[in-house]
């Protein structure tokens, strides 16, 4: 098993953990954290491919991760603000109770 494969397996496992969290947990905050985990797994892939890719000196992966981090920060801020707004509306943060958007 090459190092790149190891890294990719690591990130796949992380991604799946995040997915399971999103699917299983009902608390909106934990769902959000699961999403963050999935995002991190993606970042991990970027770094891995940058490290073992064809042109590491170009640094595309690193640059991408910088932007992804910024976007993650924005996403977390807005997401948690949404959670707080949700809490104000229905006095809990169970995602299953938030069904007012149904068609």
């Amino acid at each position, binding site marked *: 098993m090459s190092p790149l494969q190891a890294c990719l397996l690591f990130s796949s496992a992380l991604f799946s953990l995040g*997915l399971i969290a*999103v*699917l299983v947990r*009902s608390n909106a905050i934990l*769902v959000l954290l699961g999403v963050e985990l999935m995002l991190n797994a993606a970042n991990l892939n970027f770094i891995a491919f940058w490290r073992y890719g064809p042109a590491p000196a170009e640094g595309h992966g690193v640059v991408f991760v910088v932007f992804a981090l910024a976007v993650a920060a924005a996403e977390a801020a807005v997401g948690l603000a949404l959670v707080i707004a949700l809490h104000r509306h229905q006095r809990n943060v169970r*995602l*299953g109770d*938030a*069904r*007012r*958007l*149904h*068609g």
Partner: protein
Amino acid sequence: MHLPVQLTWLIPALPAAAAAMIAVVPARRPGLGAGLALAALAGSLLLAVLALGGALADPAARLTHTFTWFAVGHGAIRLGWLLDPLGTLLAVMVAAVGLLIFTFSLGYLRDDPRAKQFFCFLSLFAGAMLGLLLANSLLLLFVCWELVGLASYLLIGFWFQRPAAAQAARKAFITTRIGDLGLLLGLVWLQDSTGTLLLFDGGRGVLEAEALGSLAGATTVGGLAVSTAIGLLLFCGAAGKSGQVPLHVWLPDAMEGPTPVSALIHAATMVAAGVFLVARVFPLLAADLALPHAPVHALSVVATVGAVTALFGAAVAVAQDDIKRVLAFSTVSQLGYMMLAAGTGAWTAAIFHLLTHACFKALLFLGAGSVIHATHHEQDIRRLGGLRGRLPVTGATFAVGMMALAGVPFLFSGFWSKEAILHAAHGWAISPLPFLVALAAVALTAFYMTRLLAEVFAGAPRGHGAETAHESPAVMTVPLVVLALASVGLGFLGTPWWPWLQRTLDPTFKAEAGGAGLMAVSIALVAAGILAGWARYGRHPRSDARAPDPLARSVPRLHRALAARLGCDELYAATLGRLNAALAAAANALDRSVWDGCVRLLARLGAYAGLVSRETDEEVLNGGFNAAGDGLRASGRAYARTQTGDAHGYVWMLAAGFVLLALAVLLGGAR
């Protein structure tokens, strides 16, 4: 050091920019606004003096700077600036007198809460006037002309809370607009026939030989030369601005504005514009003189109107009781003089008189303002009197102004400029009448000015305001003194022995000898007028505000007619006003019955068409769309069932979709 002609725009731009800045200055800092206005006008004065220096260095050379405003099709609208003795001299005069009037306003409007706006308007006025004087294009001149009209409207109606002021402002605006309509038509015609509105353009301008020749050569309706027709149209504008009969009615009413405004409008700027325009386009007006069979010469009309105005104004001024109104009609009369001079060909004499008149009339108005200020806004001369001791500076300077206006010989400027006009009228070949009228006006002018002086300053106070009067502050009296000095000194620029001014303005001017007899006659007339006035009013001043005017005792009917200004306003109200009302009523009736009927018929037709269209629409078209809409709604409702609002469900679908997709790819890749 002379002003480069390319920088001429700075002269009008400075006050205009000051006006813009004052507009945004906080209202609680009126001092800042006034300072800005004064500083800008002082800068303009300095630049105008520099420009005058450049223009005097070579009076025959006309410095022009032309630029393209915008291009239309193949042609272009070009504007420009012109530095010649006429424009720069008047610009210096306007800026100088304006500066003094601004200074005076500092004192006069010190307690007015809207003093800031006042200085804003004043600056706009001065900027527009300076632009008018220095324009090398009739179009640019017209723009500034209208700006002057706007500013005068704002200033006359400055105390718009008073119905009389608002009324006067409207009247001034509308009356001058009637004249401006003629001016605009003349400009359009001129542009149409010469293709340019530039005054001087290296041989192609409208005031240069080529254009003048073609204009004088063509004839139009009634055998009039085109130049005559255009000239008369332009003169309409000048008559409106300069208050010539029959468009003089706005000028006396304009006294409703603050007194500095009266001084500015009646002395230096607005009324000067008309005379200036006549002087400016004089070659155009004079182009038809060479035609032997012209039915009428433009200049003859000018001279006639001027003569009528001069006599009319002087006569009416005799019977007015408002100090400012006397001066206003005096202005009407003096403007008539100037027009008379221009009409008889002596436009340099007209400008000479314009200059001297600007000084002493500004002096008289500011003096009147000082009197009004000192007596708590008492303007009725019947309730004034005895102010000589209480207002020494005002009284002395007012007397100087009076003597200059009346034409007291030798020392005062009015004498010399009037003399030049009389001389020109005397030499006019076409008719002796204007000369005789002018002589009569001379005597009347001396009479009513003596009356005014005697009523206001001699005798005993006849009202509360006059009894408690006290001299105005230095900021108001200093401009008076300066103007008094100028009223004396300016006359020596154009004496018959040394006609510097005339020669500077018109290099072809030739002094004619033999005016001594004429001068003696006019001196005798002035003396007679002053003596008569003194006999009537000065020797036995009236004792009481309610005592009747001596003139009213002797010739009551004439006095009543003159006091009513010969019924001009009433005449207008009875004829033009009523005609206008009738026309409006007719238009109204036409509108209601005929046009409305047509419109209603059309509407009925439209409504019927709509009815038909609606039936088709609802029965035929909508059926199909309704069916389609129902189908869409049903399918949408079915699809909406999958939108559970459950975020988890969505992720579930995502995960399932991903797995399916990946499986497909993997299996497909394996195959």
